[in-house]
């Protein structure tokens, strides 16, 4: 039953969501110090095997699994087992957390201060907390928060401390560890560090997976990791990674645990701390290496207003019910369980499917603020809007979004214009407002002379920052928007044709958005259903007909995705026109960026989002997947070989010059 609930996004209007509670309210009223020093007695897992962090290490090192891999590695490499064991022990030392309550208390104090300065409120759904409390007792828990900001895991631990829940251990990227002092602080607050890539390193993988599994099996602490793997710079959810998900599910597959509870957590920010940082990064101004001094410089951040923050703890998803009928656990019966086993094709499919579903739950529980709607509208109107018409359109969009099931936090008893002006105030640094006219623009214009290129980049930062808000609501409009685009480009009203177009777009954009593989029919039906309910379409047996009143909605929907369409077309054009034979993978992004910049400067392109490296990367991945481009390894460099015919026809289809037809798809 639990799995059914997970799989039915059928009636978004009926979706019931919990109410929020502001935890900062209490913090503003009572002493932070007392709060940090209060008695902390978390609810514990009933099957808990009590053990200390140091004991954990020896359990891991002596585990059958690790011992087996050590022997294997030693016989393959010719190194002595002692040597390999030593290596394993060093890996573990580098990786392991050493959770200490004192550090948590320190954070509880300092973060209280910081959060109170940064945020107007931090809202949590307490029913979710209660569900988590229940889940924690029953089975080991894995927390799966969305990842938009560094704040995320600090906030998670802070919340769990606040609500007397067991503190999580958190899988963090190694880059944090290089930050002096802070790395150690994070380690003491429960972070463990994993290398970004360790593809072929058997020993590393063994140590890492055994470490995580041991903590899970013993119920040591909830495991927390980010399905998306890294912070999303665009505020769109990223395609989930399945490696760690497999590790935490394996103890269930192998019967070592009766069940594991996965708890998706959606963390959303009214205003993201890293907002302009991300935009710069996407434009190729490199990400500053994580360093303590960098963090201190970011102090200035503390003096600004970041509105509210929302944390929504979703319903725990039982791995057992997820896997029911999908995973045949007896496939693990014929090999001793300590011998590492690569997941079978079935398991892979299951993992990826589960990961997508979980990310979709995260998306659905993400709180959207009115500003998200405003940002969407402002991006569609680069020349700006009058305040009154902005308010009017925002109101219209609000109803559309609600009808599509958006989790919109709209103030209850306020006039729309009031809400709009409040939102504009919070995000004023992205806007210029003069004489009732609102426009996205660069506000803090640098005094020095700027080159045209620099001016473009300044504007692009604003556009991309703004886009990161629009992106938050994309998942609500995505399916209907794909349908709208498909209808525009299809040359008939026949359902088949529209579906083909829909399916094609879905394929092209499946690196860009969260689209569960294999769900295309379901997505199509959902889109039809939503638009039909809005009275935009009439879906007949073989035809899809637009209603008289549906034009504006369809136009809006297809222009939601327009920047992506244009961006992909730019990448296509670049691949057709500009590439030489030896384009390396590394050169790709800068080359596309300068190509797009040229087009913008020449006035041939208005879409600043084409400059985003995220879009360019996703486009490349899509083209690779569609086999329009392929990677060739030459020496130690990877070059891209472009199938210009295929890319050309892709561009034509995307540009609506040729309708999608089966044969063309086949040729791709």
């Amino acid at each position, binding site marked *: 039953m639990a799995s059914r609930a997970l799989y039915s996004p059928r009636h978004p209007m009926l979706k019931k969501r919990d109410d929020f509670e502001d935890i900062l309210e209490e913090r503003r009223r009572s002493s932070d110090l007392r709060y940090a020093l209060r008695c902390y007695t978390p609810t514990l897992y009933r099957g808990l095997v009590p053990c200390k962090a140091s004991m954990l290490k020896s359990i891991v090192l002596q585990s059958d699994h690790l011992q087996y891999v050590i022997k294997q590695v030693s016989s393959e490499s010719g190194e002595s087992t002692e040597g390999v064991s030593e290596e394993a022990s060093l890996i573990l030392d580098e990786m392991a957390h050493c959770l200490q309550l004192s550090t948590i208390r320190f954070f509880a104090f300092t973060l209280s201060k910081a959060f109170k300065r940064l945020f107007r409120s931090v809202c949590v759904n307490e029913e979710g907390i209660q569900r988590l409390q229940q889940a924690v007792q029953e089975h080991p828990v894995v927390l799966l928060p969305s990842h938009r900001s560094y704040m995320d895991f600090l906030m998670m631990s802070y919340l769990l401390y606040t609500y007397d829940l067991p503190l999580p251990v958190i899988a963090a990227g190694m880059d944090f560890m290089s930050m002096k002092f802070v790395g150690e602080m994070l380690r003491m607050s429960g972070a463990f560090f994993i290398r970004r890539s360790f593809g072929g390193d058997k020993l590393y993988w063994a140590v890492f997976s055994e470490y995580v599994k041991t903590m899970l099996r013993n119920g040591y602490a909830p495991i927390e990791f980010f399905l998306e793997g890294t912070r999303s710079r665009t505020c769109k959810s990223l395609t989930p990674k399945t490696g760690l998900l497999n590790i935490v599910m394996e103890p269930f597959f192998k*019967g070592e645990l*009766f069940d594991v509870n996965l708890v998706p957590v959606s963390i959303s920010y009214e205003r993201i701390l890293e907002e302009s940082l991300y935009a710069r990064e996407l434009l190729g101004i490199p990400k500053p290496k994580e360093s303590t001094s960098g963090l201190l410089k970011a102090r200035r951040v503390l003096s600004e207003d970041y509105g509210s923050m929302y944390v929504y703890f979703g319903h725990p998803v039982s791995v057992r019910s997820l896997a029911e009928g999908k995973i*045949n*656990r*007896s496939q693990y*019966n014929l090999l001793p*369980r300590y011998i590492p086993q690569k997941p079978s094709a079935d398991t892979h499919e299951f993992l990826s499917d589960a990961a997508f579903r979980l990310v979709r739950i995260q998306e659905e529980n993400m709180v959207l603020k009115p500003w998200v709607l405003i940002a969407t509208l402002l991006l569609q109107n680069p020349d700006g809007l009058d305040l009154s018409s902005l308010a009017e359109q925002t109101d219209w969009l609000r109803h559309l979004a609600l009808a599509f099931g958006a989790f919109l936090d709209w103030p209850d008893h306020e006039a729309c214009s009031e809400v709009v002006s409040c939102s504009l105030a919070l995000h004023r640094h992205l806007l210029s407002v003069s004489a009732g006219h609102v426009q996205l623009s660069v506000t803090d214009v640098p005094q020095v002379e700027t080159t045209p290129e620099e001016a473009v980049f300044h504007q692009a930062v604003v556009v991309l920052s703004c886009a990161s808000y629009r992106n938050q609501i994309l998942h609500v409009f995505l399916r209907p928007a794909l349908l709208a685009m498909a209808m525009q480009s299809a040359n008939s009203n026949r359902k088949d044709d529209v579906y083909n177009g829909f399916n094609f777009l879905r394929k092209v954009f499946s690196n860009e958005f969260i689209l569960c593989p294999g769900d295309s029919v379901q997505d199509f039906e959902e889109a039809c259903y939503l638009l039909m309910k809005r009275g935009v379409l009439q879906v007949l047996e073989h035809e899809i007909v637009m209603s008289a009143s549906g034009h504006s909605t369809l136009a809006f929907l297809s222009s939601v995705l327009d920047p992506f369409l244009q961006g992909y077309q730019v990448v296509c054009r670049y691949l057709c026109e500009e590439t030489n034979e030896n384009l390396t993978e590394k050169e790709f992004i800068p080359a596309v960026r300068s190509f797009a910049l040229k087009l913008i400067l020449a006035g041939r392109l208005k879409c600043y989002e084409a400059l985003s490296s995220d879009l360019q990367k996703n486009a490349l991945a899509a083209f690779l997947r569609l086999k329009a481009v392929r990677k060739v390894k030459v020496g130690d460099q990877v070059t891209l070989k472009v199938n210009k015919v295929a890319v050309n026809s892709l561009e034509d289809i995307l540009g609506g010059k040729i309708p999608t037809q089966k044969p063309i798809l086949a040729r791709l």
Partner: protein
Amino acid sequence: MASNSSSSSAQQRLRIIAGHLQKRPEDEHASVAAQECKAETPRSNPSSAAPVPKRRQEIMKWNGWGYSDSRFLFNKKGQAEFTGKRYRLSGLILPSLKDWFEGTFGANLQHKSPATPTVNLSAVAPPNLNEPFIEDLKAAGVAASHDPEDRVFRAHGHCLHEIFALREGRIGRVPDMVVWPSCHSDVEKIVELACKHNVCLIPYGGGTSVSSALECPHEETRSIVSLDTSQMNRILWIDEKNLTAHVEAGIIGQDLERQLNEHGYCTGHEPDSMEFSSLGGWVATRASGMKKNIYGNIEDLVVHIKMVTPRGVIEKSCLGPRMSTGPDIHHFILGSEGTLGVVTEVTMKIRPIPEYQKYGSVVFPNFQQGVACLREVARQRCAPASIRLMDNEQFQFGHALKPQVSSIFMSFLDGLKKFYITKFKGFDPHHLCVATLLFEGDRGKVLQHEKQVYDIAAKFGGLAAGEDNGQRGYMLTFVIAYLRDLGMDYYVIGESFETSVPWDRVLDLCRNVKERIVRECKERGVQFPPLSTCRVTQTYDAGACVYFYFAFNYRGLSDPVHVYEQVEHAAREEILANGGSLSHHHGVVFAFTHQLKEGVSVPVNENSMSTVQFTEQPHG
């Protein structure tokens, strides 16, 4: 303890025999072995007398387990007692059973669900007789009956749904006729005639099947004849040179053992159902005995099998102990559950009666430690005749069966023991578990063996807990089926099932299956948490046999048997997913063909099952 006295050797031997019969020293507390009651029955020439009459209804229950005179009940004072005179527990008061029963199941003595008192013979459909077959049978001189009572008795085994239906007075399709062959050639004739006249045969031994193997197929249109082997119960010869005995397959376990004992021998094969189950049934279901560590399972004990099939008699041509010509035909027969033919005669290994027997028990702080200890015992290959580890729930269950203590001194002693273990040794009464042991052999070796096992146990935190506890553990297995009938009087239904599993998965399997049962019950609307308990009941080099009891209070459920079956199905699914086998010794063919596919992988499928049956039920 059994044979301290040194009187004449004949006397001593008699004593040994008696001691073995009771599976315990004569002068000790409650025992459950039913043999002793049999021994009390005066019988001038036991080896020729039929211990199970053709009219089983004379001594056995028609809608429950075992003898009609033996049953549990709550008396007027609300105390549990066990009636009859056959068992050591008979006539005793079990003061703590009521509290345990009410506490565990949320049951209440006010809420009764009594069974229909007598068979409603008018509900039995008139027999569908095949007249030519009957005539030929009469000519061949084989005893037969189509008395409704006889037929009803042979229409069921002891699956929950079968007993439940009988208690409600529901009688489904029953055999149209019962035949009692008295020897191998009778069976040959019957099978031949069945083929000739297109009659369906269902072999019937002790009637203790728990795999629905005795259920008559509803869609069967032919005349169904129950072939009751109970009158084929002779030991044909005993070969002391080779230590083998040739026995007719209808003999009941306790009779076989008693008759061999009279000659100073035993087979050592003691399945929990040995009071009622037959040798042919053991062969047909690949049975396993409690003392398999010394004597082996049925497949190790059997030297030669004679089986009558529709295509003739199958048997090996010699009594050699091993043959390289394969596949071994015994492997077809063992576990075929009556689908291939009727087992008529078996040559079995026998052993001299052991000189000395001793029970024992060890308390462990928790189940994990207990399993680790059993694993170590198996690793060192020093398992006693029987070693079983009960989990905490089952330990408490066993405790509830403690008879009333006669003296204040005894109850004081019990209190002291409890204090020592829980307070002094710090064992948590809600986690501790008990291993029960049975040693057998010559006295010196038994004592040495005992020490070895207790030494290993000590390494895993085990404390020796006396013979008494050990014995009570074994008693539980004999009375559990009677207890089920008691439960059914008060809205509680239950059943057992078992599996075998590699050592490293034992703990995970036990935990997951028990939890799955609890969870499934909850999901299916069972109002009270079920009893979900297990014991590790046999050890092997590469794994162990785990036995589950599962029972729940079904008040408020409209179709309790269906719920029960769904939960059991889920539990078996869980077993398979955790690397366990579908069954260690119960047999499965009829009940779980669908799961057999998962359990055995490719070659066995429902199709091949039906073709196999086809041979037995000709023209099927």
